[in-house]
Every structure is written in structure tokens, then in C-alpha cells.
């Protein structure tokens, strides 16, 4: 069974998620603040950490950054009420493998956790929209074609996700396998994490689309 660790400073929300997920996952621990979370995660070594973005003491960002230094194999899924672009992009670039909002349905959340556990990326429609917007057609001056541009296929996959389709439906609609969809999404995640095109940063501050 996949082991998960929960980090959220809202006790009420924490206990709700714990109840929802305890059937499908082994919840090996939870914390309500950054320091305890870093210690707990290092000790429990869960498969997936579900981490809130906004917390006192550095927030989810510092949890991800700290744990990644010592345990790069632990995977993170960011869960937040905020879908402000700067939060989303910051969490992804810190090393989180996905970003979902707290309004997500319990089943969809469980699916997302499974996906992160096997090393795939989880893109919500909003995150897909952000990425399409940030990697718009305008090519930066110092383009690194491997990192600064999306392939037409990746773009198409993201469009489908932005329209609200699940990976399986995207695969059906584009007549490709689910595995291929996952490969494309993981490639986009890598670009998002490694690309240094300044549009990414500028875009996140300029467009505060919610």
C-alpha cells in the first residue's frame, strides 16, 4: 500500500483528508508545521507527501526544498486553496510533482496521489492553462529548444487537460496510449522545473489569473 504523509496547518482540513484517504492509503504521519514536517518525513520516508502551500514558517516551499536535499526520492503533491500562478509555479519548480486545489473531489485526489507515487506528474486544468500561457508561441531570444518550448504534441495534451479531460480520456481522444500521455506530461513538468526562460517568472508576476 502506498504510504502518504500529510502536511497542513489547518487541523480541520487535515483530519478530513485523513479520513477520506485512509481507505486507499496508509497514512504514516501528519504535521501541522514546517519543522515537524521535515523531521517527520525524514523519519517515516513516505512514498508521497501531500503538502499545503501556505503555512507559517516558510510554507510548503521550505518543506519541499528541505526534504529534497536529503531524500530526493520522496515525491510531493502540493495541495492548496490558492491557485495563484506564483504559488503554483514556485511549488512545481521547488520539485513538487503536481499541484491540485483543495476543492478537488476525494476520488480525483486519490488518483492524483497514485499517479505521483509511480513518478508521474499531476496537472490540474488550471495548471495546464498556466503552462500553456507561460510557454506561449513567442520564442525567447536565448531559446533552449529542449527546455524553453513545448512540442506540438505536448501542447495538444495540455489543451485537452485544460479542457477538463482525464488522462485516459485524453489518450482516447488523441488516439495514443495513457502511457504516452503520462510521458508528455512528465516532459512538460521537467521543462517547467528546469527552463530558465524569463517569461516564466515575468508571466507569473504579471498575470495573476485565478
Amino acid at each position, binding site marked *: 500500500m502506498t504510504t502518504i504523509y500529510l502536511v497542513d496547518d489547518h487541523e480541520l482540513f487535515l483530519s478530513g483528508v485523513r479520513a477520506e484517504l485512509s481507505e486507499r492509503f496508509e497514512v504514516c504521519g501528519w504535521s501541522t508545521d514546517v519543522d515537524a514536517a521535515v523531521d517527520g518525513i525524514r523519519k517515516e520516508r513516505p512514498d508521497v507527501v501531500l503538502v499545503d502551500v501556505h503555512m507559517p514558517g516558510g510554507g510548503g516551499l521550505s518543506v519541499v526544498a528541505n526534504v529534497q536535499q536529503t531524500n530526493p526520492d520522496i515525491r510531493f503533491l502540493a495541495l492548496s486553496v490558492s491557485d495563484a500562478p506564483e504559488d503554483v509555479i514556485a511549488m512545481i519548480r521547488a520539485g513538487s510533482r503536481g499541484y491540485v486545489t483543495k476543492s478537488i473531489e476525494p476520488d480525483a485526489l486519490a488518483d492524483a496521489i497514485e499517479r505521483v507515487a509511480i513518478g508521474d506528474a499531476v496537472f490540474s486544468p*488550471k495548471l*495546464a492553462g498556466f503552462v500553456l*500561457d507561460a510557454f*506561449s508561441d513567442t520564442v525567447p531570444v536565448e531559446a533552449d529548444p529542449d527546455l524553453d518550448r513545448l512540442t506540438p504534441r505536448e501542447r495538444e495534451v495540455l489543451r485537452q487537460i*485544460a479542457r*477538463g479531460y482525464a488522462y485516459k480520456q485524453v489518450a482516447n481522444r488523441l488516439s495514443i496510449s495513457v502511457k504516452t500521455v503520462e510521458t508528455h506530461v512528465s516532459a512538460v513538468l521537467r521543462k517547467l522545473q528546469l527552463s530558465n526562460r524569463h517569461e516564466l517568472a515575468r508571466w507569473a508576476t504579471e498575470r*495573476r*489569473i485565478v
Partner: protein
Amino acid sequence: MATDDESTPSESTERFQVLRGHLTRSTHDRIVAGLAGGIAARFGVPTVYVRAAFVALTLAGGFGILCYLAGWLTVPDEQQYGSMIIADRPPTTPQQVGLGLGFLALLIILDTVGLWFGPIVWPATLFIFGAALVWDRSSAESRDRMSQFAKPSGDGASRSRAQIIVGVALMAVGIVVVFASLDSFQQLGPVAIAVLITAAGFMLLFGPWILGLFEDLTEERRARIRSEERADMAAHLHDSVLQTLALIQRSDDPQRMTTLARAQERDLRAWLFEPTGATNGGTVGEAVKVAAAKVETDFDVPVEVVVVGDRPLDNTTEPLVASAAEAMANAAEHSGARTVSVYVECSEDAAEVWVTDQGSGFDPDDVPEQRRGISQSIIARMTRSGGEASVISKPGEGTEIHLRSESL
């Protein structure tokens, strides 16, 4: 003179030993190398006096600079040494007088030896120490002002007034003596010197006070902005969030509660994250969001909107938004889907909207009369405005409506 010559060397050698053994250069209280800061900390006197002493010694044929350089070379850095050497208590009055006399003796010796820049040194020294007195007091006062727990004591206030008066008097004597002796070195340009000295005196006198005033003003303005923001936030929360919470408590229909909560959430998000002054409904993306909000409230079904790129509303995009609104309402009312997804993409040559639901779907060739009506009215509207629309649906597999209008 002879007695001075006897006493001073022994005193200064003794002091020198102490210095060599227990002196460090300060790393936090430094202008050049931290020597003055280190000496001040070692003897428990304000740094400004040590700096004044170095400046005065420099007038004595550059002796101060030599001393400083020697100190820089021989005295270890605070970090090198491990920790700062500081006096365990401030010097007593006799000790202060002793330090002052020692310094005076040193100056006299230098004068006798001939390391001297001329008659300006004595008045300049007076002026420098007067300034140091004033500066020390004013900066101590502004330090006290900064710490809100400092109690204004009558004793301290009168002492500081006395100190400032003595300081200003010393400066004034210095300036007067300089002016009086101006005749003897007119080649230096007396007016320029007078202006310089007056300006410097003014700055030293009022500098710390003006600085403090400026800091107070900035702090006050910042506090005012903060409190205005808080009032703004409170008013907004009261108007909207508290009202909604009250409504939710009075409602017993879960669907209605969800809708109220979502509407409030959207409103709050817009208020928190949208840039102020964003055109409300002036662009395709904004207009679609407004339409989606209306559908959510009317049909109690969440509508997720994702916008990529944006463009202003015009003759071609207005029908696009109207059609999208109709498609959203249609999906929310008939599909039975839990959510409706809307994706808006604006590029150089076209604006496109996809309205998708994962609901019941239908067979476009065999539809109930009222649904055909809706999808046909959408298609007709788009075609009229030069755009296009397509409806893809299968029973049990949801519906996708694609709207597209080319840029003119």
C-alpha cells in the same frame, strides 16, 4: 611642559601594553577597519569620541592616519580573535578625565615636536569634540525614541541638554577662533572655509535629529497605509464573507450551500488576487468568467474556467462569449454533469472556447426538440458573426462544444 613629558610616556606605554594585549577591531561598528569601534568597546566610551580623536590627531601632521594604519596592521580582527573585547563597565568620571588629559598631553607633545598643521589645529580640535558631544547625545536620544520602552527621565533630559549646550559652545568657540585667525591664512579662501564650517556645523548639530524625523515620518506613513488596508479588508469581509456565512447557516439545502460558498470563494479570490483596476468583463477571458459565475448561481453547478491568452471584446468576440454562455447554461441544465469545464484560448489569429461536460451526452442526430434548439441557436449565432461552432456528443460520454471566431 616638563611634567607632562615625564608623565605621558609612562602612561602611554602602559596603555599601549593594554591595547596590544586586549584590543580587537570591531566588525559591526566599523567605517574603515573597525579600529575606532574596537577601542571604544575596549574602553567603554561612545565610538564617536574615538573617531573624533583620530580626526584631531590627523590634523597633527597626519599622525592620526599613521596611528590608524599601525593599529590596522597590528590589532587583530574581532572574528580572528574569536570574540570582541569589551569593557565590563563604563569608565568612571576620573577615568574619563584621565583619558581626556592623556589625549591632550599627546596633542601638546605633537605640537612641541612639530608635527602640526598650524594654528588651525586647536580650534579644530575644540570644534570636533564639541560636535562629537552633540552627535553622541542626539543619536542616543533617537536610539531611545526608537525603543518604545525607554522611559523619558528628567535627569537624562537635563543631562543631554547640558551636553548639547557644552558641545555647541565648544563648536562655537572653535569657529570663532578659526574666524579670528583667518587673517593669518587668507590664502585658504576665508569665505569658502566659513561656509564649509557653518554647513558642517549645521549638519553635525541637526543631522541626527533630521534623520530621526525622517524615519518617524516614514514609519508613520507605513502604519497609516497598513491600517487603511486593514480597514479595507475588514469592510470587504464584513460585506461579503460574513453575509454569505450567515446565509449558509440559514440554508438547509446542501446544493444551495455549495453554490453560495463557491460564489463567495470566487468573489474573494477575485478581490485578493486580481490586480486592482483590472477591466471587469472588458476582455474575452473576463467576460467568460462573468458568464460562468452567472451560470453557477443560476443552476448550482460549478463551472471551471481556464483562460490562455486574452483579447478585448469586439464585434467578433462578443457573439463568441454569448454563445459560450449559452453552451455553459445548456450543459449545466441538461447534462447532469457535476462540473462544467470551459477553456478559452486566444491567439494571434483566433479566439476559441471549448465548453465540456462529462454528463449524459446525447446523439446529435436524434435529440429532443429543446436541445436541438439550443445547439442550433449557438451554431447559427456563430455562423452569423463569421465564426464557426461544432457540437460533439455521444450518449453517456459527455458533450463538447467548440466555438471559434477568426480575428479580423
